């Protein structure tokens, strides 16, 4: 059996309290193994994003266990969660979420600087390496506003992967890209998945993306409706 990167056991998430309680996720059991490329699909409001936030340790579940690389996270305080997030998880957001005041290279360097506590030459080299891998080295000194949507998202991919985390979470990574750019960004993620064994959990609306993932988890009304593995994909 493959090594698990992530395990959710009986996770439930409710917002609000009393009569206004809104249960967004119920009884979620999900295990993601090392090197898996998983798509989470489902209609709007089904709880996909909340699920991703719980996986990303950005939101804590109301009930149930979350294990990241075998470590139970429920008992951890905010600082420990933050450290875990910083070391183990890369994030790619729908609207790239690059910092507007920084250049592409500085944005990619940011997770490294947060970990190290200061900037240095070797961090810039690593950032440049990551930018080269996504084919964005030529825009290293450009600010996000000077790049196209596809380019911004490729920089965001470089930022998510610069620390080589075992797990990368992507929330609608191609949500506002055209077909060609979606293709490029998805190819990048697939390449990292193949070459480095990075596990990806991708929340997407885009069927063409979902179809090409080895595993598709469908969430409807806060429950996992279907969890199918497509073999013979490569």
């Amino acid at each position, binding site marked *: 059996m493959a090594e698990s990167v992530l395990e959710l056991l009986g996770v439930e998430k409710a917002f609000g309290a009393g009569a206004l309680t809104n249960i967004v996720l119920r009884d979620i059991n999900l295990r993601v193994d090392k090197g898996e490329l998983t798509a989470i699909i489902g209609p709007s409001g089904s709880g996909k994003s909340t699920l991703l936030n719980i996986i990303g340790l*950005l939101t804590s579940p109301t009930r149930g266990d979350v294990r990241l690389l075998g470590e139970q996270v429920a008992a951890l305080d905010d*600082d420990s969660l933050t*450290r875990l*997030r910083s070391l183990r998880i890369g994030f790619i957001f729908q609207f790239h*979420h690059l*910092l507007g005041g920084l250049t592409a290279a500085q944005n990619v360097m*940011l997770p490294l600087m*947060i970990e190290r506590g200061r900037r240095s030459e070797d961090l810039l080299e690593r950032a440049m390496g990551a930018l080269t891998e996504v084919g964005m080295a030529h825009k290293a000194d450009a600010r996000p506003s000077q790049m196209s949507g596809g380019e911004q998202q490729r920089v965001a991919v470089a*930022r998510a992967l610069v620390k080589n985390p075992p797990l990368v979470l992507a929330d609608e990574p191609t949500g506002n890209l055209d077909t060609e750019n979606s293709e490029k960004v998805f190819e990048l993620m697939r390449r990292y998945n193949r070459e480095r064994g990075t596990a990806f959990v991708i929340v997407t609306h885009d069927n063409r993306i979902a179809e090409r993932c080895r595993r598709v988890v469908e969430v409807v009304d806060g429950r996992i409706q279907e969890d199918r593995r497509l073999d013979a994909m490569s």
Partner: protein
Amino acid sequence: MWEQRTQNALIVSGVGAGIGVLVFISALIGGLQASLLERTTGAQAHIVVTPLELEGRPVLADDLRGEIAYLRRIERPVQRMNTLPEWRKLDRNISEVASVLATVPIAGGPALAVRGSTDRSVSVIGADPDRFDRVIAVKKRMAEGTYSVNGSDVVLGVDLAHDLGVAVGDRVRLKTARGDGQMFIVRGLVDMGNQGLNKTWALMSLRNAQTLLELGGAATAVYAKVTDLYEADVAANRIAKLTGLTSKSWMETNAQLLSALKSQTASTRMIRGFVLLTVAISIASVLVVSVIQRSKEIGILRAMGFTRAGILRVFLLQGALIGTLGSAIGCGLGALLSLLFQSALRNADGSPLFPFALTPGLFASAAGIALGAGVVAAMLPARRASRLDPAEAMRHG
């Protein structure tokens, strides 16, 4: 980005204006007070120690011969020239009192200056010139000639010399009501910046004053200078307790001036307080908005591993930075305003009315105040920012 820059520029200039006013007001009041104090205390000793006043002698029972006496009024005795007992020892004791910087024994009293048909009443002060100068700066106030009281030399107040029609090198006779007096040679004229003193002062050696005033070898007072002007009353009390003599500080003799200065200081403090409050509130309001505007970025940073403490630091730092930059601008602005006013406010003769007190201490305290206000003001918004839920922040940002 542009909005944030404009916002920061605006708030920094706002803080700058506030700190500028603070610096200007402090420099103005500080300069005014220093100049007033200098005029008042520069020409008088901080502490004057004199013998106790003579009191009415009680009626002795023997004098009454068994009759009952009704006293309608106790007549004050004439305050004849009263001298200090053992003044050399006394002078040594006073000079050892805490915070006393310098002392000088004085032989002083009233006399007449006679020249031709005019005479003027003078106040004779006999003292060792160097020690006297350490207590009351005379040398730097010499208008003409030198501060020399050797032999039969005398230094007169400028107005006294003018009234008598004498100049440096002329002779003048000083006498008391009882004696014939002595001839003196005028060696210098002193301008104490105070008409009362300029019209009456006659400075001479201790020995000459003792002879002229028929004091024998006695001294009539000890003058003392203290390290801190505003501690003069404390030192005066200490001396009074130690010696049992009358010991008065300038604060007692200038009570009105002192209370004016104190209320001025209080109002300056109030202005400072309100400026500080305004600065703090405006920094806080800008940072509150900034936290809302940047909540998306805060969420991103938190997702990428920025801790709460890290976010807290960023905003505290921003507050500190606004404060520091604002105080730099404010110090410049305040200094500029002060210099402008100083050159505009002039005496009739064209000299500045008084120098503004633009001290390094003032700039340092203004900078400290602004920095403190910035950090304190940033506290609340920074806490808010650090507690943002990253997932929420990104969704709504």
